[in-house]
C-alpha cells in the first residue's frame, strides 16, 4: 500500500483495552503517525499507555469517529449496539468501520449503521500486544478488496494477517483466540513435569516458555510441516520418542482437536445469541 497515503490516514479507536492497544502499537510501527491516531474510552484508566505513545485521547466516541477514516470498534460485545447507535449518524462514505468484538456478526453491525457503510469484522488474538498476533478479517457487504488491502497494510506489523469468509472467524476464535490459552496450559504442564522431576519451579517455567517460543518460531520460519519437524527431533530410541509415545497414549491429539471444536462451537453459539439480541 502507498506509504504516503498511510501517513495521511486518520485512525480511531473506540475502546482502550488490550486489543485496541496491541493494534495501535502495530499500526504505529508502520507509517502511521501518532498525531493521526485517537482513542476514546469512558474512563481514563486505560488511556495512559496510549498517551505514552503520543496518541490523543478523549472520552467522546463521536469525536473519534468524526476525526478518523478508519475506526476500530474495540469495546466489549454487549456494548457494541450502544456504541454503534451513538455514532451511526456520524458515519460517512469515507469511513471504514472495523469491529473487533467477539461474537458480533457483520449482519448485526451493518444493521445498526447507515446503509452502504463499509464494515469489516476483525478477530485478533492476545499476542497482538507483542506484535505476534494472528488476525483474521472478513469483509462486510460494502467493503471492497481495496478496503481489505488497506486494513491488511495497517495491521501487518501486528502479526499474521489473513482474510477469510465470515464463517471462518468462529474457527479462528477457537484455534487462535482460545488457542493461546491452550498453549499456556501446555506450557504450565511442561513446567510441572520438570518440577516433578526435580527442577525448581521458576526455572522450569522460564524454560518452558522459551521452549514454546522457540518451537513456535522454528515452526513458523521453517515452512516445514509440524510432523516433519517432530520427526526431525526424534532420534531413534531416544528421549523424545519415549515422551511422545506417552503423549499419544494420553490422547493429547484428540483432546486438542476437541478443544478447538468446543471453542468454535461456543463462538458460533454466542454469535447466534448476539444476533438474536441485536435484532430490533
Amino acid at each position: 500500500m502507498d506509504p504516503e497515503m498511510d501517513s495521511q490516514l486518520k485512525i480511531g479507536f473506540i475502546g482502550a483495552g488490550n486489543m485496541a492497544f496491541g493494534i495501535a502499537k502495530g499500526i504505529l510501527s508502520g507509517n502511521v503517525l501518532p498525531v493521526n491516531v485517537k482513542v476514546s474510552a469512558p474512563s481514563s484508566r486505560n488511556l495512559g499507555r496510549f498517551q505514552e505513545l503520543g496518541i490523543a485521547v478523549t472520552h467522546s466516541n463521536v469525536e473519534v469517529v468524526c476525526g478518523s477514516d478508519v475506526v476500530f470498534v474495540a469495546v466489549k460485545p454487549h456494548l457494541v449496539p450502544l456504541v454503534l447507535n451513538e455514532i451511526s449518524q456520524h458515519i460517512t462514505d469515507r469511513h471504514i468501520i472495523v469491529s473487533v468484538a467477539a461474537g458480533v456478526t457483520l449482519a448485526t453491525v451493518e444493521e445498526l449503521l447507515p446503509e452502504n457503510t463499509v464494515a469489516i469484522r476483525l478477530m485478533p488474538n492476545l499476542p497482538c500486544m507483542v506484535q505476534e498476533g494472528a488476525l483474521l478479517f472478513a469483509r462486510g457487504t460494502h467493503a471492497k478488496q481495496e478496503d481489505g488491502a488497506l486494513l491488511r497494510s495497517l495491521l501487518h506489523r501486528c502479526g499474521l494477517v489473513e482474510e477469510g469468509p465470515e464463517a471462518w472467524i468462529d474457527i479462528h476464535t477457537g484455534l487462535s483466540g482460545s488457542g493461546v490459552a491452550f498453549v499456556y496450559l501446555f506450557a504450565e504442564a511442561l513446567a510441572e513435569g520438570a518440577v516433578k522431576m526435580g527442577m525448581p519451579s521458576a526455572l522450569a517455567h522460564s524454560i518452558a516458555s522459551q521452549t514454546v517460543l522457540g518451537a513456535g518460531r522454528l515452526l513458523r520460519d521453517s515452512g516445514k510441516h509440524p510432523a516433519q519437524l517432530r520427526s526431525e527431533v526424534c532420534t531413534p530410541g531416544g528421549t523424545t520418542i519415549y515422551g511422545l509415545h506417552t503423549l499419544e497414549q494420553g490422547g493429547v491429539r484428540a483432546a486438542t482437536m476437541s478443544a478447538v471444536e468446543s471453542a468454535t462451537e461456543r463462538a458460533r453459539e454466542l454469535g447466534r445469541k448476539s444476533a438474536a439480541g441485536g435484532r430490533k
Partner: protein
Amino acid sequence: MSVGFIGAGQLAHALGVIATHRITASSPDTDLPTVSGLRKMGVNLTTSNKETVSKSDVLFLAVKPHIIPFVLDEIGPDIEDRHLIVSCAAGVTISSIEKKLLQYRSAPKVMRCMTNTPVVVKEGATVYATGTHAEVEDGKLLEQLMASVGFCTEVEEDLIDAVTGLSGSGPAYAFTALDALADGGVKMGLPRRLAVRLGAQALLGAAKMLLESEQHPGQLKDNVCSPGGATIHALHVLESGGFRSLLINAVEASCIRTRELQFLADQERISPAAIKKTTLDKVLQQPGVTVSGKTDSGLV
C-alpha cells in the same frame, strides 16, 4: 550358485520364489502343507539335511528358533568354506550360531536375516546383518537374492528385533486393520468381497504413494483431509481411540517379545518336549547323523 533351505515350512515356501537358482529344501516331516507347494515350484525336496548342505552354496536356516542348535550340530561337520549360512530364525544371534559352528570350521560364514511374508508376492521387507567371517560380497549376494522379492538392506544386528516388531509382524497388523475396515464397509452397506477389495487397495495405494513421495506421511494425510470433511471427522475418531499409541505399543510389544525369545534361544538347550519324537527318529535314521556328544543338549 545354488540355494538350499533347511526346513520346508512357511519361510521356505515364501522364499522359494527366488527360483531362478537351483533350490533344494529338506525337512524330516513330509506331511507339511507347504511341502506340496514347494514341489510344484520345482524345488528338490529331501528328508536329508545333509543332502541339502551338499547341494547348496547359500544355505538358509528356515527352522523354528529352538531347533537351530540341533540343526547346527547335525550339519556342522558338513559345512565347507564355500557355504554361506543365512539364519532366518527370530531371536537367534549370529554369535550363537558362530559359536556352534566354530567347533567344526575355523571361519564359518554366517549372516542373519529378518524378512516377512509378503516376499511371496515380491513385496517383502528384509534386513540382514553380517557375521564375523562373512565378507561384504556375501552381503551383496544375499541382498541381491532378497531384493528380487522386495526391499532389502543391511542393518546392525542389534536393530533386528525392532525390525521384527515393525515389518516382521507388520503384515499381521495390516491384515487385522483390513479385516476391521472391511467390517466398517459392510456395516455401512457394502458387500463383503467388495469391502475387502477396496480396503486392501486403499492401503496398498496409500503405501505406494508414501514410498514414492518425498513428503512426510503427516503431510500426505493433510492432503486427503478437506476442511470440515468426512476424513477429518474420521481421523478425530481414530485419535480419540488412541490409534497411534496402539500401533506404537504393538511394535514395542513385538520387539520386546523377540528379545525374550532371543534370550531363550541363547540358552542353547532344547528340551525333549520341544521336538516331536517321530521327527527326531526320522532325523537320526539319516546315514552319518549322530546326536552331538554333548550331554547337556537335553536330548535323550
